[in-house]
């Protein structure tokens, strides 16, 4: 057999049916479901008289629209409450495993899948959410789908897919202290653009990936979609196996050993070829921060806001001018020193235990600037409990952060946690689109340590000075 990429191995192992020249029918090992993109899918099934084929391969929680305050209170927004209640009824009727708002396992769907060990190497994983690419950190082929496809997977446990192209992204060298996974992925998106990987599945490799924790790999795979990629993947290794071992859904004893033996084959063979290769030297990397209205509009914290004239195409110049107008920024302004009103540490990108530890290390013994409102929204209730067990909640609270319950929260602002018109926010989330965190809100994407440092100073700063 000719050398194959990791993607090609996982793809080939899941083809149920294929006609020459046509798309493949792929089997789905794990289907993650949440309240916002599923109600119309369940309704479609009912109208067609169809049932959920494999409730045992389906896992549901509530995350997108839920409040992150006091969990003993009912959801105040009646439309959100209806959407949550609809999911509760749908999963009950179908017999789907479900973590409700009051559950100790509730959390952002892309945080709890790995946490439970439901996410495993070599799987195909889909969810009606674009950040499903997160699970690729384990060597799974994981991607976001629309609601019609959610319905298709519920009914058939399969998905019709055209075969994507492959891209290798090699992160070389060793990054400096204060620079990490978030900076690596933002730098990549800045380099290739928000549509730069459209039609591709990315495999991340290189020494800098091997040195990353699973949390860091998840951050990178999570934002693959922000470069337009169908999915992002990292070949599993000892770091992966050690992270998964003992989690509720993984095999134990002899079966664990046999399973790990199979997982070891999940790597790109020597000599396997990719349609495109991109190399990035992380030893030269500074902390990254976005200045515009898409994640590709990003620069070193030491840089200045670019001028529209610096861009080659008329379309880019127009887009940059529009972005600067929306962001309330003048070309040539240093990014370091920009005053922030809000700080958000959360989201499926950066709200796992390691992220909270990194932010807390900056905050220990320091205070949030008096005119900044800062909040931490842990990625899951388990992350929250683990952080509390090591006292991180006190570090955040004593520094002046709000310590909240888990959910997507201000990453997309579907609940009451939103920016006001014109408010500037340092955010560990994944999208800085216009209005993403609240109508008229201005988002700067950055890493957890950069967010913590910004909270202390009340302005964007280079976190390397805080370490």
């Amino acid at each position, binding site marked *: 057999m000719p050398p194959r990429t990791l993607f090609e191995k996982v793809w080939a192992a899941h083809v*149920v*049916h294929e006609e020459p020249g046509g*798309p493949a*029918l792929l*089997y789905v*090992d794990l289907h993650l479901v949440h309240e*916002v*993109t599923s*109600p*119309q899918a369940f*309704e479609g099934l009912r109208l*067609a008289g*169809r049932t959920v084929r*494999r409730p045992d391969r389906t896992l549901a929680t509530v995350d*997108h*629209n839920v409040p992150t305050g006091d969990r003993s209170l009912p959801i105040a*927004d009646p*439309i959100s409450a*209806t*959407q949550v209640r*609809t999911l509760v009824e749908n999963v009950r009727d179908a017999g789907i495993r479900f973590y409700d708002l009051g559950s100790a396992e509730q959390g952002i769907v892309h945080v709890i899948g790995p946490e439970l060990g439901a996410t495993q190497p070599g799987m195909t994983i889909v969810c*009606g*959410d*674009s950040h499903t690419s997160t699970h690729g950190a384990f060597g799974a082929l994981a*991607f*976001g*789908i*629309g*609601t*019609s*496809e959610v*319905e*298709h997977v519920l*009914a*058939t*446990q*399969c998905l*019709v897919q*055209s075969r994507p192209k492959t891209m290798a992204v090699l992160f070389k060298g060793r990054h400096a202290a204060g620079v990490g996974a978030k900076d690596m992925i933002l730098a990549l998106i800045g380099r290739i653009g*928000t*549509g730069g990987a*459209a039609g591709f599945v990315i495999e991340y490799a290189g020494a800098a990936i091997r040195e990353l924790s699973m949390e860091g790999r998840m951050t990178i795979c999570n934002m693959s979609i*922000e470069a*337009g990629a169908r999915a992002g993947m990292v070949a599993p290794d000892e770091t992966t196996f050690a992270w998964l071992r003992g989690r509720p859904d993984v095999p134990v004893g002899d*079966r664990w050993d*046999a399973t790990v033996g199979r997982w070891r084959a999940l790597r790109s063979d020597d000599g396997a070829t990719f349609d495109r290769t991109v190399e990035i030297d992380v030893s030269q990397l500074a902390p990254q921060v976005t200045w515009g209205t*898409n994640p590709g509009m990003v620069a070193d914290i030491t840089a200045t806001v670019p001028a529209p004239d610096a861009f080659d195409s008329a*379309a*880019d110049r*127009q*887009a940059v001018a529009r972005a600067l107008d929306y962001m309330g920024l003048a070309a040539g302004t240093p990014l370091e020193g920009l005053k922030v009103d809000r700080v958000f540490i959360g989201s499926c990108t950066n709200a796992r235990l390691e992220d909270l530890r990194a932010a807390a290390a900056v905050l220990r013994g320091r205070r949030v600037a008096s005119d900044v409102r800062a909040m931490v929204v842990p990625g899951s209730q388990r992350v929250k409990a683990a952080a509390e067990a090591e006292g991180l909640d006190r570090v955040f609270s004593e520094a002046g952060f709000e310590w909240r319950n888990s959910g997507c929260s201000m990453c*997309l*602002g*579907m609940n009451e946690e939103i920016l006001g018109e014109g408010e500037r926010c340092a955010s560990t989330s994944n*999208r800085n*689109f*216009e*209005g*993403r965190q609240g*109508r008229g809100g201005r988002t700067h994407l950055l890493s957890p340590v950069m967010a913590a440092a910004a909270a202390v100073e009340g302005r964007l700063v280079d976190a390397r000075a805080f370490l």
Partner: protein
Amino acid sequence: MQPFRVHSGRAAVLPRANVDTDQIIPKQFLKRIERSGFGEFLFHDWRKRPDFELNRPESTGATILVAGENFGCGSSREHAPWALADYGFRAIIAPSFADIFHGNCCQNGLLPVTLTPNEVERLFSLAGNGPLALRVDLEQCEVTGPEGFHAGFTMDAYRRAMLLEGLDEIGRTLKLEASIAAYERQRDMEDVA
């Protein structure tokens, strides 16, 4: 699904790249549990600006949207094509589309047409002359318009057939039940091995 064969109508132009689905339908409208009624919220925030392209008189009643590259990037929300279709659009023309959005359009009989950047630029400039009438033909895979505008496009045979016939993809897949069941038996055995 509503089939798409040939459609003639007025085109609105949106000469912006990387239009994300958060702009097409902002998050506060995703709490509905129905598929319908999203059209009035299409481009909700942008439509509040008088200079927004869709507010121009020549965009009134448009059923074809011409936009810049990487249209529909970001969130996978199918509410975006639902909103576009509910507003009255039948086809979207752009130099490129985000993958998930492209698939979501095809699931809803909303035809995504990929033309070259030059062809799309030509449509932007033709729209400067007043209302722009276009004809989008999926049977012949071509777009025609004023001043001799003619552009062919390609679409993968499977998607094209689904759209031309308005087929139910789930129904089609369920006909492969024997293959799915055989695959599952093998897969489930591996899981307990």
